[in-house]
């Protein structure tokens, strides 16, 4: 009985600890400035105010940031799913030559932090004049997410029973038709799971987004928010910063609530195949 209680206590402490910094930002963003600066801290604000949210949208093109993030993350997700599912099918089902080589290079790439690729990619952006263009982020994001996506989808395709394809072949369907009309719909759950993870990873990327997007209206929300608080310690507007943290992460929180099970499935699948 005591063990049970201890278990519950620990789990709930852990749960609280996981959401605490974020919850604190929510509370801070709704406080008025005097309460923000109050010492000792005010945990339950007496006066709720949305002023920081309106300040935020007024001072910075926050709507643009969100839109950019959305477009870039969605674009990376779709493109990566397309490329990786083709490659995964090829490796899993068609035993293509070079498949092992691809898988090996993918695993090695996944081990490098993005700073390794950063500068040559930056050079490419300069040469092609694509700074501030979403494509400058989408293409690298596809590449960074390929290892995970290909590994997960390869193992998924390997698990699809052969008879499905054999039956389709007997029905006279061409290889392309088999791929897109039979296999892909079957893969929908795996694609959805992988897609969500790619979306999240792209939304959260910082190094490239910070450097490739210099114009304010081209920034993603992650780079835009981080640059809000990045300077000296004087006069940091903690209220609007908290509001910006909340807004920029709200879509992700919603994703987590909606797709909790899928996400965990995807993470563990990726880990065990890696």
């Amino acid at each position, binding site marked *: 009985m005591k063990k049970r209680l201890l278990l519950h206590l620990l789990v709930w402490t852990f749960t609280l600890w996981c959401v605490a910094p974020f919850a604190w930002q929510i509370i801070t963003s709704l406080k008025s400035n005097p309460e923000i600066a109050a010492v000792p801290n005010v945990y339950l604000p007496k006066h709720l105010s949305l002023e920081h949210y309106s300040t935020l*949208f007024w001072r910075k*093109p*926050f*709507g*643009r940031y*969100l*839109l950019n993030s*959305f477009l870039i993350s969605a674009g990376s997700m779709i493109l990566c799913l397309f490329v990786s599912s083709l490659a995964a099918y090829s490796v899993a089902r068609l035993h293509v030559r070079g498949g092992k080589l691809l898988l090996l290079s993918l695993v090695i790439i996944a081990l490098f932090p993005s700073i390794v690729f950063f500068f040559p990619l*930056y050079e490419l*952006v*300069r040469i092609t*004049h694509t*700074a*501030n263009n979403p494509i400058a982020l989408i293409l690298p994001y596809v590449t960074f997410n390929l290892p995970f996506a290909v590994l997960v989808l390869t193992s998924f395709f390997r698990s699809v029973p052969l008879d499905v394809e054999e039956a389709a072949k007997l029905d006279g369907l061409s290889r392309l038709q088999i791929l897109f009309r039979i296999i892909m719909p079957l893969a929908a759950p795996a694609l959805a799971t992988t897609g969500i993870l790619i979306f999240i990873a792209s939304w959260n990327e910082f190094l490239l987004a910070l*450097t*490739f997007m*210099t*114009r304010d*209206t081209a920034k993603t929300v992650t780079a835009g928010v981080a640059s809000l608080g*990045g*300077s*000296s310690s*004087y*006069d940091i507007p903690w209220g609007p910063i908290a509001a910006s943290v909340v*807004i920029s992460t*709200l*879509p992700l929180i*919603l*994703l987590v*609530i*909606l797709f909790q099970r899928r996400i965990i499935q995807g993470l563990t699948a990726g880990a065990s195949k890696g």
Partner: protein
Amino acid sequence: MGYSSVQSFAIVAMRMIFIAGVFAGCNRSEKPAQDKVELSILFAPDSTGVWRSLCADFEKQHPNIHVNLIEGTASTNGREDQYVTSFLSGQSPYDVIYADVTWVPKFAAGGWLEDLTDRWPADNWARFIPGVIEGSKYKGRIYRVPFDIGAGMLYYRKDLLDAAGEKPPETFDDLVRISKELQHPPSLWGFAWQGQQYEGLVCDYIEILKGFGGDWIDPATNAVGLDQPAAIQATTFLRDCMGKYGISPPGVATYDEEPSRQLFNAGRAVFMRNWPYAWVKAQAADSPIKGKIGITRVPMTPGGAHASTLGGYGFSISKSSPHKDQAWLLVQFLTQLPQAKQVYLNTGTLIAQKAFYDDNPDPAIQQMYQVFQTTVPRPMTPQYAQASDILQRHLSAALTGLESPEDAMKEAAKETRLLLPAASGKRAAE
């Protein structure tokens, strides 16, 4: 609330956020294209609004030019990074650059600054304090029109020195002697300065180094003077301030401008090395030392010279700007004396033009002007930032006792030589 209700709420919320985002993005529409030329400049925060009003005045005089004054972060480094990344990306939106003195060699070497030597003949330079002109040049060509000046100065407690019948110190020995005489630590220390590991430490050090007759880097030959006796003596002097002489609080190795100023402002130091802004603060109504301080040049030794590290901003033009002529008009406008004076009146920033000091009645300003005659720029090498980093680290190690001054300077010299290319591709040692 059941799990599925949470899910539905989440879906609706996501849709709303997305739609709001699209609308908010649309509302921020670009200005319709007009027949105007738009000049963009990335500026420091304009808390008094004086710069905006100056730009508005300029626009009245030039109705076909619109000035887009973008307020950036207060941090100089932060704005420098923004300029650099925009230049590197090849699509810089900035026409005019509000350039700190340390940026000139770096930006010029990167090929991002317009060479102003032909637009701005040398006889025009005469109205500026010579040191700031030096700080606006790279390889003999001028890249920046100076605006304001900052310089390191020695503040002293006039009341204490007068009471003891002492004149302001000319040499380091004087400084030490008077400090020892007048201080009674810990309530009153002798000499407050900036010893933290950061750019300010290097600024302080340069003044001492020149005072001992030493040299850091000669940009023409990339010769490094850090392991010469003068440099080692300078480092030893600073370390001894805390140790052997005991005239500086041990905490000085962690001070930047503010802690040292606060110590002096509270009346707890006889001498302080700091920038001009400290004077303004000291003259505030509630300052305990109001009216009690004087300003003089940083001391030296007979084999050296008085030196004051140069700081300050000016205006440069971006080489890739499509509106260089209009940008030049703006730069000339902003650096005229009447406009510069307006900025001074609003923000207390000191102007880099001689005329400003010619008939200024304020004795403190006149004292500062004397100091400004001794300004030296930091080494005008494009790789200054890295050289400064090397020096900072080793100075800090010497000050905190991790390395002896001699070892620290020798290491610093070695790393600096590896950093800098030898001039004309030949090794400097040959």
